[in-house]
């Protein structure tokens, strides 16, 4: 829509003016790792990161969410009546979200907001959120976004995309929301054609730096049972310790559990992130478990991401190539290898 300029030296003022209208989440370095946190006062945001260890998915889909509350006091008129927990959804900005993480939210969106059911907490947060993305000048060696429908300067799911050009950012608005945000922050200066060219060159150069590729072209045509019964799953799962790190860090993993908690006569219904890596995830009350073995759970994770998701939603794969699971898996299971095994079966 339009290309504006934000001088880096003006960034603190820019964020300050955003804070007048929005709650601002930005990457802050803590104990050696970057993490998206709300800007309260004078924190130093630090844009010198590749991918944050935790994706910002928790800002839309908190690790723990209070859904409902209820009162168990039989003397009260509303005893045992479940009510929605009151919440505010103020306008908010995620500043500095990486394009892969923004795309991941679009991957999740078809699950949480579909023609039959709309998850109210997800929908309200998505509506209240503006996404200011930061393109990746220096992708990591584990990044493979360009193979899975994203890229270091991919625009999907973003309202504004920032190109870091050294002394200044080129801020490209992509939606009305993004236009409105820059307007409210008083960003007026248009980028000239020389700067736009620089941004385009940066994008091209950065895409070239992503040397890690995975094949996906044949996944759709494969028969689900051929993949399910493939001979390689024992080998893939062999080293897995079912720790759940991959699902915890994955920006597209959305599975959750619902639990009730009571304190005296007051109760809450809470949803918590869950993981298909854990045997309890599918354990029936009868004791029967459709996925009692580790290999079945590992297969479920990859089949869901690379096959079931695409078959169900016709929306690509449920992987954005961020490389977190590759980087943090304690036993070095590499999803890129599984892409090859499945695609080339």
């Amino acid at each position, binding site marked *: 829509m339009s290309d504006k300029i934000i001088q880096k030296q003006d960034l603190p003022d820019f964020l300050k003016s955003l804070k007048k209208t929005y709650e601002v989440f930005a990457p802050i370095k803590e104990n050696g790792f970057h993490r998206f946190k709300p800007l309260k006062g004078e924190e130093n945001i630090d844009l010198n990161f590749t991918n944050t260890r935790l994706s910002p998915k928790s800002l839309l889909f908190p690790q723990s969410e209070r*859904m*409902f509350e*209820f009162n*168990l006091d039989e003397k009260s008129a509303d*005893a*045992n*009546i*479940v009510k*929605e927990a009151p919440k505010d959804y103020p306008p908010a900005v995620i500043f500095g979200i990486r394009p892969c993480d923004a795309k991941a939210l679009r991957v999740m969106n078809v*699950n*949480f907001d*579909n023609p*039959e*059911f*709309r*998850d*109210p907490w997800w*929908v*309200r947060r998505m509506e209240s959120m503006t996404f200011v993305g930061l393109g990746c000048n220096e992708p990591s060696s584990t990044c493979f976004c360009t193979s899975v429908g994203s890229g270091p300067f991919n625009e999907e799911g973003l309202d504004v995309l920032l190109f870091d050009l050294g002394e200044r950012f080129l801020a490209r608005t992509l939606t009305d929301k993004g236009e409105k945000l820059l307007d409210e922050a008083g960003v007026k200066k248009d980028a000239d054609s020389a700067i736009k060219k620089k941004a385009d060159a940066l994008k091209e150069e950065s895409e070239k730096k992503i040397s890690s590729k995975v094949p996906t072209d044949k996944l759709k045509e494969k028969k*689900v*049972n051929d993949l*399910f*019964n493939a001979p390689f799953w024992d080998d893939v799962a062999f080293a897995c310790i079912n720790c759940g790190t991959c699902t915890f860090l994955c920006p597209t993993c*959305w*599975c*959750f*559990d*619902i*639990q*009730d908690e*009571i304190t005296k006569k007051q*109760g809450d*219904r809470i*949803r918590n992130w*869950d993981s*298909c890596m854990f045997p309890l*995830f*599918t*354990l*029936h*009350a*009868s004791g029967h478990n*459709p*996925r009692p073995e580790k290999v*079945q759970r590992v297969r*479920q994770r990859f*089949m*869901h991401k690379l*096959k*079931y*998701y695409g*078959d*169900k939603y016709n929306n690509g794969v449920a992987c954005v190539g961020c490389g977190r699971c590759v980087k943090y898996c304690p036993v070095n299971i590499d999803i890129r290898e599984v892409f090859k095994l499945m695609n080339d079966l």
Partner: protein
Amino acid sequence: MLDNPYLPLPVRIEQITVETEDKNLRTFKLVFLNKEDEEQFSYIPGQFCELSIPGQGEIPIGIASSPTESGFLMFTINKTGVVTRYIHNMKEGDIIGIRGPLGNWYPWEAMEGKNVVVIGGGFAFTTLRSSIVYMLNPENRNRFKDITVVYGARSPGLLLYREELAEWEKRDDINVHITVDSTDDPDWQYNVGFVPTITEQKITTSEDSYALVCGPPIMIKFTQPVLEKVGFTPEQIIMSLEMRMKCGIGICGRCNIGDKYVCKDGPVFSLAQLNELPKEY
């Protein structure tokens, strides 16, 4: 305002009936607290609900009443886990919540004008009971040809809905074959034998028929070949599956078989559909 599909509607436990002699199965008749909730709640046999007990959690349970029975919903619950144990100790008049109706239903449109064979075992007879009551309703009965039921349990005292079974047995617009695995009751007037054996004796044709089959895995395993022998195709064999569920609306991610969520794309599947999916249930 956005509808919240996770929000349970309040209902009162109107009546509790102990169904089986081991007392592990009780039927709960539930009545909506709010008239407008009752009016908006419209379901089809085969669907289920999440019963929601504040402080304990939620359980997915098939609807055992039929939409032709108005004013209440009925659920028959096996005492198994945390929530079912708790509800078994609740009293008439207690308030719980309900979410639904959820999931799909038996293929009523396809079954129109056909013979319907209902095969059930043990406590997996709840949505089948709903279906039978629905078909026997005077407004619906002529939409179907012959209705045949084979229903068995381990012993007479473990059969659900015994009074209704005895009534159906006497009617001439439905063929009911009740069976038990064994009994030492000298007055037992029905069949003795496993469900697959009785099915083999009583179901001799698949012509123009659909079979609705619900029961423990072992029963299904031995009933399937019996049905296939008389010519039932995988498209004519309909089953209802169970799975651990939470949200009930295809979002929380735990009840999948391949790319299907049992809670939303099921619980009813034809054998033909199941044959295309991974064997992981």
